[in-house]
């Protein structure tokens, strides 16, 4: 299964570690984009240590004053159109956690 999940808050969804998929994507949107940029007490978000492909929505980064150059290199920045392509081409099931 190719599964992508949306993370929209700056906390880790409880179910995240329990989900299993051959291809797993984590799409950071809304307050989820802080995972991509912030270093809390010098540490990157533990969420970024998961085995997954990471994406963050550029519009949500920009609206929060977070520039793309602060985004962790593991995370690919996409816009809404890029997100549509991910949804149709790269993943089969999508969950909003």
């Amino acid at each position: 299964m190719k599964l992508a999940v949306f993370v929209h808050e700056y906390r880790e969804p409880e179910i995240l570690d329990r989900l299993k998929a051959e291809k797993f994507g984590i799409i950071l949107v809304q307050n989820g984009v802080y995972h991509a940029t912030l270093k809390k007490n010098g540490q990157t978000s533990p969420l970024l240590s998961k085995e997954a492909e990471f994406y963050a929505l550029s519009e949500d980064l920009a609206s929060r004053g977070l520039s793309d150059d602060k985004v962790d290199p593991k995370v690919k920045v996409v816009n809404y159109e890029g997100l549509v392509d991910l949804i149709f081409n790269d993943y089969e099931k999508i969950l909003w956690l």
Partner: protein
Amino acid sequence: MGKLTIGTFSSLVGSLSLDFAVKLAEAAVKKGHEVDFWLSGNATMLGKKNQSKFRDYSYLLGTIEELLKTGKFQITLCEACGKARGIHKEDIIEGMNIYSMDWYLASMYNADRVIHIGGE
């Protein structure tokens, strides 16, 4: 080109999840996909006519009206959720449907992708 069904329960005012869902629908239609959009729970307020545009609140009706013109976008409001909030057929914008929950399930039947944004 595919079909995307988006369902959302989040409110127009007080949350930006509906804003996200409408922008995603807009991008999908722009790329040539068809979009079915289901409004349930607090999201039903998106359908209400005569919304005023204030800078402190999301205003999505303009985008919805443009999307409806494309012929690739259908939007339906949950009848029970709407009525419980005082939103009846005569209160909703032209081009929007009002049906029971089975419409959403039927829309998913032949959808290539489904994104369900299940409330706050």
